[in-house]
């Protein structure tokens, strides 16, 4: 009996840990993309006229880009048929809830499997969770408490109605619909996401977090997040993703916009663990994300931290436009690719204001048949006096069939700027491995330990509860890569 249990448990571990499907009847739009679908989504969301107009403009612009899907990234994937996907799916439950007890128990169970004990989080961690299940936010907690302090933390579809002036002012101001192919697509069909506004001078007392989850089969996820930190405000925002196992590729094209005014600070942390496809490279999420921050105010600060372990394809460049004098941007990234995963990720630091600072620490780990590319831009404008940049990107190769690439662009148009870029590529040294093995560790434990050490600088910047999860994830992602 015990043996059978163990066998079952082992089998369970072999599977993608979060690979399960919740069976909830969903309210979905017909397959394909057209103006009608855009209108359908907008109507479904009960949006004001201006929002629909904006979506349609974006859609029409996207149509003109039909042949301009970006090809410059070092990514290979079959051509995506945008007419062969669903653009809207929402869980049936639409009634406003007073407490968690009223939430569909099936949903709650899903969260449990995902490791989001909402109640416990409320009590223990002090984290307000805006859980996005598929595309519609179902349960929003701690809202009242935050509201009392003047913080607005709500699904963006709600914010469009409750705070149209803020949404209208800032939506698309950092990533306009003309920005790129995937951003245009997102503007046209985004279904939901988070909206955060931190009022002047407030240090948000708790970390805000959203769990994204793709659930409906063949549903593209088009999240839209907008975070505004008013003068002197501070907020730390966590984003984490897991997705169920699928055979067909799922498209994910999110847009995140951050805005910091004078002396404000936003810390944005991501752990991305979408389904990466199986060991043969079948399936997996296509993740095309546009993330950008505008440091508009003086001495404002944005810090991006990302741990990218999932997705079959990752195309993601969280960027900072350092407009305000003295503003600073930081980018910490760990990207792990295994099996047939491909990641092309990095950042852009655009220095426009005086005394602007940027720091980039990128760690790429490649195993199996994976390809991992760091692609980054540091640009110092002619007026950005005394700008400083420090970039370090290190790559680690595990095995002889993977690839690690570094493509930095450094454009300096100001004499007083100081930019530094360093990059190295190496493998796990035999000495380190031997040292661990002779102390009784298994090879996988040793690799996990060494790789965790390699990424330490980045993982340290994560909030505590995320850091723990991320460290485990680093080990799990590389399972089967040594042997």
């Amino acid at each position, binding site marked *: 009996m015990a043996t059978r249990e163990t066998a079952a448990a082992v089998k369970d571990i072999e599977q993608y840990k979060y690979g399960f499907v919740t069976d909830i009847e969903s309210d979905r739009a017909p397959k394909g993309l057209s103006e009608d679908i855009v209108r359908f989504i907008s109507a479904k969301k009960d949006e004001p006229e201006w929002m629909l107009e904006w979506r349609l403009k974006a859609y029409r612009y996207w149509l003109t880009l039909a042949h301009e899907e970006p090809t410059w990234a070092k990514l290979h994937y079959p051509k995506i048929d945008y007419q062969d996907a669903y653009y809207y799916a929402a869980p049936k439950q639409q009634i406003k809830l007073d407490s968690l007890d009223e939430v569909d128990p099936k949903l709650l169970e899903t969260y449990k499997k995902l490791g989001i004990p909402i109640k416990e989080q409320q009590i223990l961690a002090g984290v307000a969770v805006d859980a996005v299940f598929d595309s519609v936010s179902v349960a929003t907690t701690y809202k009242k408490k935050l509201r009392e302090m003047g913080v607005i933390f709500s699904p963006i579809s709600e914010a469009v109605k409750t705070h149209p002036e803020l949404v209208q002012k800032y939506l698309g101001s950092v990533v306009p619909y003309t920005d790129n192919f995937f951003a245009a697509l997102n503007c046209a069909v985004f279904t939901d996401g988070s909206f955060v506004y931190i009022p002047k001078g407030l240090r948000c007392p708790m970390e805000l977090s959203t769990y994204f989850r793709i659930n409906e089969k063949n549903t593209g996820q088009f999240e839209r997040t907008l975070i505004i930190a008013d003068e002197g405000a501070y907020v730390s925002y966590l984003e984490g993703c897991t997705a169920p196992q699928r055979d067909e590729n799922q498209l994910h094209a999110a847009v995140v916009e951050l805005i910091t005014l004078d002396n404000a600070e936003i810390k944005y942390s991501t752990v991305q663990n979408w389904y990466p496809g199986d060991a043969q490279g079948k399936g997996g999420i296509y993740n095309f994300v546009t993330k950008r921050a505008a440091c508009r105010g003086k001495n404002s600060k944005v810090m991006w931290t990302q741990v990218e372990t999932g997705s079959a394809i990752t195309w993601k460049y969280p960027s900072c436009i350092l407009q305000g004098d003295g503003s600073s941007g930081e980018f910490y990234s760990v990207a792990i690719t295994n099996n047939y995963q491909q990641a092309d990720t990095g950042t852009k630091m655009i220095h426009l204001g005086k005394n602007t600072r940027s720091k980039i620490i990128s760690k790429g780990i490649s195993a199996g048949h994976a390809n991992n590319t760091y692609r980054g831009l540091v640009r110092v404008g002619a007026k950005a006096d005394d700008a400083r940049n420090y970039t370090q990107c290190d790559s680690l*190769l595990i095995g002889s069939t993977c690839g690690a690439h570094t493509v930095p662009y450094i454009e300096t148009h*100001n004499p007083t700027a100081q930019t*530094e870029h360093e990059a190295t590529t190496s493998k796990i040294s035999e000495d380190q491995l031997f040292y661990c093995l002779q102390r009784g560790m298994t090879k996988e434990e040793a690799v996990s330990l060494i790789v965790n050490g390699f990424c330490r600088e980045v993982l340290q910047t994560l909030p505590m509860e995320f850091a723990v999860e991320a460290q485990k994830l680093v080990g799990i992602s590389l399972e089967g890569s040594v042997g």
Partner: protein
Amino acid sequence: MKSPGILDHAFGAAYAKRLGGLPGAATTALDALRQRARVTLGTDGLPGPKLEEWRFTPLRGLAKIPFIPAASAEDIEVSDVPLSVPKIAGAARIVLVNGVYRPDLSDQDFSGVSVSPLSTKNVDGRELLGHLATPSAAPLVALNTAYMAEGIALHVHGAAKPIHLVSIGASGAEPAAFHPRVLIVAEANSSLTLIETHVGLPGQPYFSNPVTEIVLGSGAAVRRYVEVAEDADAFHLATTAVAVAENATFEAFHLGLGGALVRQETHVAFAGTDATVKLHGAYALSGKSHHDFTTVIDHHVPSCKSNQIFKGVVADDAHGVYQGRIHVARDAQKTDARQLHKALFLNRGPKVDCKPELEIYADDVQCAHGAATGEIDPDHLFYLLSRGIDPERARNLLVEGFLADAVNEISDETVRDVFVGQIAGWLKKRGVQS
């Protein structure tokens, strides 16, 4: 990707019409090569700004000028080598004027190497022409191959006496373009030191489009030191393709001191194990000069080493570019590849763009790159001033010191001294101007 065929506007059909008989026109092999390149050129044109490799170096200015073939401009007369060309002790001089070999200005006392103009009937190793620098996917190589004027072939048999190749550009009443071609074949265990000086005469803008192919046999050692000090209105777009066999050593240094638009593109392919490539360079730019170093190093085979150190100084409204790519193939284990680019700003106005790229498919390798930009450290300047050195000399010392990291990589002492002298000359000239 097809780039805009801007060739049509400036020197397309009209250029071909005025071409007349190219040297060696009756040589079947050359004619076939030219014909193929002309077809490629017709479809690809000159590279447009949307082409990734050319994003930092737009050719719009070049495309506007209606160049004529230098060979058909009869009013150009160059009777002597300009005084700015340094004399290299112990080296035999070969002079090309607008890409055409000039025996009257050249030395003839070569040893260990046979020198023959490409139009000569029997050129050793001519069948190798066009094998390394192939017209497809390289528009400027296509342009050169289609219209290559006279070029020279150097066949190195043993320990050769150093050669100083001087290329002089000049236009007559109309802007002229020329396409020098050099083929160097170094036999196994042979060695050659080649110094190149590219200069020009003031006047109408001219366009020099040299292509150099270098084949190193096993154990061969080739050192190539190139100085580009073209006229302030001149265009110089050079492509070099090198193949390095096992145990061979290729050392190159490029010095860029001027020209309206200069690009020195070098492609190195390792063909045998345990070979070493050192590819270094420095630029010192003023006025509106644009200098682009582009390098591509292909590590196809295991256990090879490549090292690149590029340093640059930019003043006035100059634009410095470094883009280097290191490609390490799956089988190229034990590769050691490094690249470094640093630039120093002397005032407000210049631009520096840098793109050091690593593309790695093997795990047991050591690869690193670095890049940095900045201005003269005020503390360093203060240190020198406090010791009674006048400001101009102090700044010059710091600039020379900055470039020394790269220049000191030149293993030939004579050439190193000459290049240090050329940099000092550039600083002196600039000092007088400002």
